[in-house]
């Protein structure tokens, strides 16, 4: 579904992403992990069209999306969430999700009905009329998820959707994400919360200083000494990599 | 075209440009420190000019002398305006504060209309018609005096910001608000001071402009666009930009009038403003962002 080839992004003298390549097969949940500052969000931004790409290519559904405007890529079916949530503050939860739904349905009635369904799917069915500005962080993350889901995407890029959530909230969201995948949506997620990453993803990519330093099934990657060193510093011995 | 006419236009443009620099430096200071676009800048200047007018009419104070009153008075007004109005709303959406300063400018303009009526006022002093000779060129003395005082004040302001303790605090807040707070700077007080200084420059500019220009309640509109153009051309928050921008805008106005006539000549300023915003919004010396 998504193939990133040797993507390179530079900011002046700094190479934020360095010849990164990854593949997201259809219907899978793939995770991108790495220490803070590794360039994960930058990579996301490049893939989704928010930042220009200096070298390399991004193929979505076998066509290149390099250089295409953000909204076009979103309409093709690749939609991202933001690390710092971006709700439509003065609109209600229902209206927020409906904006996404309007990408799928032309008419208000159907869009709102679909938005209602999505809201229930993510567990926000009871707070539809609340203004988005008044939501807790956890709910805002969920709203972000719901809104992108309402566009009926093929590939979801989730950027640290679990940051700031407590363990209960995390396991709730994990279930929601599993549910989304069960409906046929492919997911690429950036995450620091290892509990979620291990539980959800089938394949991991590890990014450090802009380079992909390891990839593979979660169990293998986590034990890889290169990965451990990236997180814990030079000379760290084996063991769980834990949180970044 | 005769070269003397060109040179005369150029120099006259620079002379007026110097005063625009002074006006713009207040605006750019306010933006640089508070990050607000002070739409009331023009009407505050207008009020200042009415002040100078009445100081002359009622108290027979020469406009240049009345700077001693106007500058501190306008500083106080600016400080109070910040504490009482602007300060309460300067957090929050960027557009809100623009609207509030718009509201303020509407109130000021119409108060002026109420109290001073719509006619334009000019002042004449003993030396209004005196000319300064420079070879074949003649320049109006008040214009020359105003230019030099404006440049002096800009230099003094620049020096103050650079060297004084308050100036350093101002620069700190402009650069890094949170950091400044963390090292113990009373950020809100600096905001009030900065706004006060910004308005004080208008007090000075009012004294410098009255002898060579006119005032009416509508003058605010004229100056708002000029001030914004200078600031945008020079770069928001850049002091050097205000100087260069002011001179360029003065030149543009002068040459515009020369080549396009009285009426169409004014278009240069709006054109610069539009072109800068469309093609180089950070201006000549501003930071991209």
């Amino acid at each position, binding site marked *: 579904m998504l193939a990133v080839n040797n993507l390179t992004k530079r900011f002046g003298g700094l190479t934020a992403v360095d010849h990164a390549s990854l593949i997201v097969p259809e219907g899978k949940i793939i995770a991108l992990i790495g220490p803070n500052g590794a360039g994960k969000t930058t990579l996301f931004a490049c893939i989704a069209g928010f930042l220009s790409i200096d070298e390399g290519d991004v193929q979505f559904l076998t066509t290149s999306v390099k250089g295409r405007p953000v909204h076009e890529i979103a309409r093709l079916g690749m939609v991202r969430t933001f690390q710092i949530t*971006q709700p439509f*503050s003065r609109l209600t939860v229902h*209206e927020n999700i409906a904006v996404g739904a309007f990408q799928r349905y032309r008419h208000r009635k159907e869009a709102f009905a679909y938005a209602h369904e999505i809201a229930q799917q993510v567990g926000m069915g009871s707070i539809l009329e609340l*203004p988005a500005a008044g939501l807790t962080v956890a709910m805002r993350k969920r709203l972000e998820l719901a809104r992108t889901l309402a566009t009926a995407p093929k590939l979801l890029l989730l950027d640290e959707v679990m940051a700031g959530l407590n363990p209960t909230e995390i396991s709730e969201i994990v279930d929601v994400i599993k549910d989304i995948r069960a409906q046929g949506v492919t997911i690429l997620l950036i995450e620091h919360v290892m509990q979620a990453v291990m539980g959800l993803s089938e394949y991991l990519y590890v990014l450090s200083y802009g380079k992909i330093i390891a990839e593979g099934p979660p169990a293998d990657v986590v034990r890889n000494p290169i990965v451990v060193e990236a997180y814990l510093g030079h000379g760290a011995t084996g063991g769980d990599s834990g949180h970044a | 075209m005769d070269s003397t006419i060109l040179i005369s236009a150029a120099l006259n443009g620079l002379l007026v440009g110097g005063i625009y620099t002074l006006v713009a430096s207040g605006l750019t200071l306010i933006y640089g420190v508070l990050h607000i676009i002070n739409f009331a800048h023009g009407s505050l200047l207008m009020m200042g000019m009415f002040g100078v007018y009445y100081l002359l009419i009622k108290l027979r104070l020469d406009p240049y002398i009345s700077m001693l009153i106007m500058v501190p008075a306008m500083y106080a007004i600016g400080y109070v305006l910040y504490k009482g109005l602007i300060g309460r709303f300067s957090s929050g959406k960027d557009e809100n504060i623009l*609207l509030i300063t718009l509201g303020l400018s509407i109130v000021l303009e119409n108060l002026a209309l*109420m109290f001073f009526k719509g006619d334009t006022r000019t002042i004449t002093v003993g030396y209004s018609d005196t000319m300064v000779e420079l070879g074949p060129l003649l320049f109006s003395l008040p214009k020359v005096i105003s230019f030099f005082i404006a440049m002096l004040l800009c230099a003094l302001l620049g020096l103050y910001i650079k060297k004084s303790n308050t100036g350093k605090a101002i620069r700190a807040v402009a650069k890094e608000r949170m950091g400044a707070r963390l090292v113990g700077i009373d950020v809100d007080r600096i905001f009030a001071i900065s706004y006060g200084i910004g308005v004080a420059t208008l007090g000075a500019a009012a004294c410098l402009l009255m002898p060579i220009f006119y005032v009416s309640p509508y003058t605010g509109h004229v100056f708002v666009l000029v001030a914004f153009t200078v600031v945008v051309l020079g770069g928001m928050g850049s002091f050097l930009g205000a100087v260069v921008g002011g001179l360029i805008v003065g030149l543009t106005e002068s040459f515009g009038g020369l080549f396009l006539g009285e009426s169409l000549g004014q278009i240069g300023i709006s054109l610069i*403003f539009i072109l800068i915003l469309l093609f180089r919004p950070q201006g000549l010396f501003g930071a991209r962002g």
Partner: protein
Amino acid sequence: MRRTPEPIAWTGHVLILAVACIFPFVFPSPFMVNFGVLALFYAFIGQSWNIAGGFAGQLSFGHVVFFGAGAYASTILQVRFGVNPWIGLPVSAVAGGLVGWLIGYLSFRAGLRGSYFALITLAFAEMLRIIANSVEITGGGLGLLIPAKPSVANFQFPERVGFYFLILVLVTVSIAIAIWLKHSRFGAQLAAIRENEDAARALGINVFSEKLKILILSGALGGIGGCFFSQYFLYIDPIIVFGVDKSVEMLLVSMIGGAGTVYGPLIGAVLLAAISDTARVVTNIQGLSLVIYGGLLILIIAFLPNGLIDLIQRLTKRRPK
């Protein structure tokens, strides 16, 4: 932050329209009819600002630019080329829409938002004012005078009340447009753009093209307002139709009444016309009404950012849980 106010039921719309229709029959004096025309006129041009500024969040400080474009387009055609003045209505819409397209294309391509967009519209208005002041065809600083020949065919209603009903029709259309925006996909996308442009883009909304569309529509309405104004007063000049005052009024009535609401501009307009006419009658002090109005703007932004409509709704309805 408060949510957007709840929509009004159909009966409410019809009631308001009915009241507006019988108004000139209940108050037939020339003073009151003039008040009605003024209030509706402000409501109309206010709505032009509102759909771009309130609904889509594209605040402009120079909205008069569309108004003036329409006024000059229709008046020049009539006075210089002898074209039937009624043609002026569609022509002014096209003129306003074209200016909207031009300003929108340039500004949005350059990525101008928020305060920068507000200011560049001001500069465009000023530019057009200067041009209108300097060229032959617009009559320069002297402006254009439309010869008075009252007849309906000549778009000069012999009975002033004719103007009242015309502007009422125009206001009704503008309100219908606003209602349509509230319910349509386009309107929802504009609201998204207003709240968070980047998030809107990330969901697949073509932000540039939607902003451009609404500015064209807003410009067209503004242009029509200019045409109406010319026919009502029979005289235009660069300061009247490209000057800052109209820009301010268009913005004020919407912000005070309630930006982004259907009836905000109408409420703001009725209030402005009332304050203005009252001030004119009670004292002869020029500028008093705008001092009040400017002060109101500050108070509204500070304490009631959703406008007077919000206040009215809070007082007449129980707060939803």
